[in-house]
């Protein structure tokens, strides 16, 4: 029975992907892309990767979809070149088909049951200070990757922020109705609770800073869209401190062992767990702030509305 579900899902994903790129209308393409993201989140769940299903649906689909839809209201609606099918070059398609077959052949040539590094992680999980293996790998065994990845987030936030200067602050018009206010007020406490739970559960179950940060950012985006909050600006010190406490704490924890002759990122065994939890808590705020910074203010009066091409 499972084979049918997996087979259908594995078949639908590339087809939906092809459909996303085939549709001519952009908003339809973005909506299909969100559907594709949710379907791939289902795929992660089927592959027993709950952490990734959480992050994919919250960040990869939710926020990216919202960001793309938000951008569409700025860029022209219909793409100037209507050839949605793109340039048709037969030899290019032949080359791509051949290389896809080669990739497929390589996949089938992979050893079918090598457990990878699973048993090794299992053996040394107790030393990492956390019980959930993915968090152990993410923040202790390969914590250096996560440190650089936080730098990637900061750079992207800086780049996106620098490109949307002051002129796009939203002017909260008075006319928003009470319903969204009420719903928003009801939803926010639940959201904070879920985010807090996710960070805490990251210690022994699927969860962690990325998932919690994504959910906080989701709440923030709703606040942004209903004009309750302007986009975070790098010039206000609160935003800077909220953004940078996480990275500074993480760098501090990474560099401290160097002073006592140990190696970079070597967390002391007894309180590695608490250190990881504190760093994850601070990183949650950082990730939420970065994901919020990707959103500009509400868009100005429609750019191409007056019939200009």
């Amino acid at each position, binding site marked *: 029975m499972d084979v049918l579900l997996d087979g259908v899902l594995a078949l639908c994903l590339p087809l939906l992907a092809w459909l996303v790129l085939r549709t001519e209308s952009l908003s339809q393409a973005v909506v299909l892309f969100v559907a594709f993201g949710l379907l791939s989140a289902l795929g992660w769940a089927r592959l027993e990767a709950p952490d990734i299903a959480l992050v994919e649906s919250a960040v990869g689909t939710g926020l990216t979809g919202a960001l793309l839809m938000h951008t569409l209201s700025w860029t022209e609606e219909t793409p100037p070149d209507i050839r949605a099918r793109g340039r048709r070059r037969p030899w290019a398609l032949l080359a791509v088909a051949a290389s896809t077959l080669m990739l497929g052949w*390589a996949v089938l040539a992979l050893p079918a049951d*090598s457990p990878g590094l699973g048993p090794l992680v299992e053996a040394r999980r107790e030393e990492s200070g956390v019980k959930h293996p993915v968090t152990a790998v993410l923040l202790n*065994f390969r914590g250096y990757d996560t440190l650089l990845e936080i*730098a990637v987030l*900061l750079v992207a936030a800086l780049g996106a922020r*620098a490109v949307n200067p002051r002129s796009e602050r939203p002017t909260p018009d008075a006319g928003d109705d009470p319903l969204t206010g009420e719903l928003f007020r009801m939803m926010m406490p639940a959201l904070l609770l879920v985010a807090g739970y996710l960070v805490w559960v990251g210690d022994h179950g699927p969860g962690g800073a990325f998932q919690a940060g994504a959910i906080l950012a989701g709440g923030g985006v709703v606040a942004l869209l209903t004009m309750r909050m302007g986009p975070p600006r790098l010039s206000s010190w609160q935003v800077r401190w909220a953004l*940078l406490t996480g990275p500074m704490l993480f760098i501090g924890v990474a560099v401290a062992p160097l002073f006592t002759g140990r*190696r970079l990122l070597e967390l002391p065994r007894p309180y590695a767990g608490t250190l990881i939890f504190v760093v994850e808590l601070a990183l949650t705020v950082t990730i939420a702030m970065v994901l919020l910074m990707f959103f500009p203010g509400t868009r100005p009066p429609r750019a191409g509305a007056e019939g200009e091409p």
Partner: protein
Amino acid sequence: MMGGTALMAWSVALPLIGAVLSLLVGRAGVRLVAGVASVATLIASSLVAWEVSTQGVLRQQLGGWGAPLGIEWRADGLAALMLLTIAVVGPLISVHALDHLGDREDREFLPLWLFIWCALNALVLSADAFNLYVTLELTTLGAVSLIVVRRDLPGLDAGLRYLLFALPGSLCYLLGIAFLYGAYATLDVGMLAQRVQSGPVTWVAAGLVTVGLCLKTPLFPLHVWLPPTYTGAPTPVTALLSALISKGSFYVLLRLWLEVFAPVLDAEVGQLLGLLGAVAVLWGSVLALSQTQLKRVVAYSSVAQIGYMFLVFPMATSGARAGVIYLVVSHAAAKASMFVAVGNIHQAVGITELGGVQGLAYRMPFTFLAMALGGISLIGIPPSGGFIAKWLLLNESIGTQQWWWALVLLGGSLLAAAYVFRILRGSFLPLPPGVTVRSIPLGNELAPLALALIALLLGLVPWFPLDLLAVGASR
């Protein structure tokens, strides 16, 4: 506390701390914090180079975990020399950038440059395949954010074009790594080198990694994004792109190819890469000759110089490796000095056409001296680093009976001489009337000269870098 391995950690942590703190202090202390962090990182990098030259290859297991589980650093001579290059060439370019960009832009330029510096140092030291992916992505996003720092239309177009070509490159590389992990259950480059055997998975993984990194370096057929991006970006950012950032992906390809893939794949694939490099040399040089914009000439010469670097793959001997690394280092210094000089010319005269250079040699002597010395190193005329590099490559191509690469080297040098002379020819003619030359600060003129002198120094004092390169050379 200050052992060799700890210094490696500091050479990566210091620019990261500098970047985060300069973001935190905001407008007031950005230059101070960035300056202190730069000096500290320069010291750390040079100490690491010194430790490597005296004690040999340094290793560090991050977080105290062993190779397959954790991430390992490995600093051999090649890594140490690259650390030094980044630590010397980078700050010189950023000093020039501070005056070239407006005051508001330097608040974004400095933190981004420190992030890129941290990423390059991390990339050079890392011996873990996935960690190389993360450092490549950090460098790419930092470069894109730098390209658009001026927020003008050409800059945005250049940044978007670079991003949309670099992304598929990283994805191809990541899929190649996924296959390697799938087959050999390790991400550590050293362990991969021991475990890898010839087979469909290895061929496909090698192909993906090579295509991905050739897209980012970029090598000839995949280089279409380079000229528009280099001309659209602000000049100091182009200097950083051509001198350091494009070297990052080449360094990863070199390390993976020479240590992991070369013994397993047959020689024909190396010949193919060499052939593409040769075509890149000819294509880049011919196009550089036909350009009218000053910046495009230097951009196409980058395409040609990258072509030279790919000549190492057909003759995978330690001599060729030393030669190509020497070319990378001297090209970094020479190309940076030329782009910075072009920035000075643009600032002084405001014209970007080749003709606009007429008669400027007398008014901007240091800039044109730097342009000339940089050109000498690009061509490979004796006293410069470029000459040593091409000499080593010539030796290897004769030594391994592959004489055709020698032809490519000589032909390319001839063409390089042509387009460098074409730039300098106009500058010695008398100044045309009516051209007002704004005087640019002395600091701005000395930056390209310092870079050009480094390229020259590499030619005059080659034994220290060459001995450093010999440390940890595999064959």
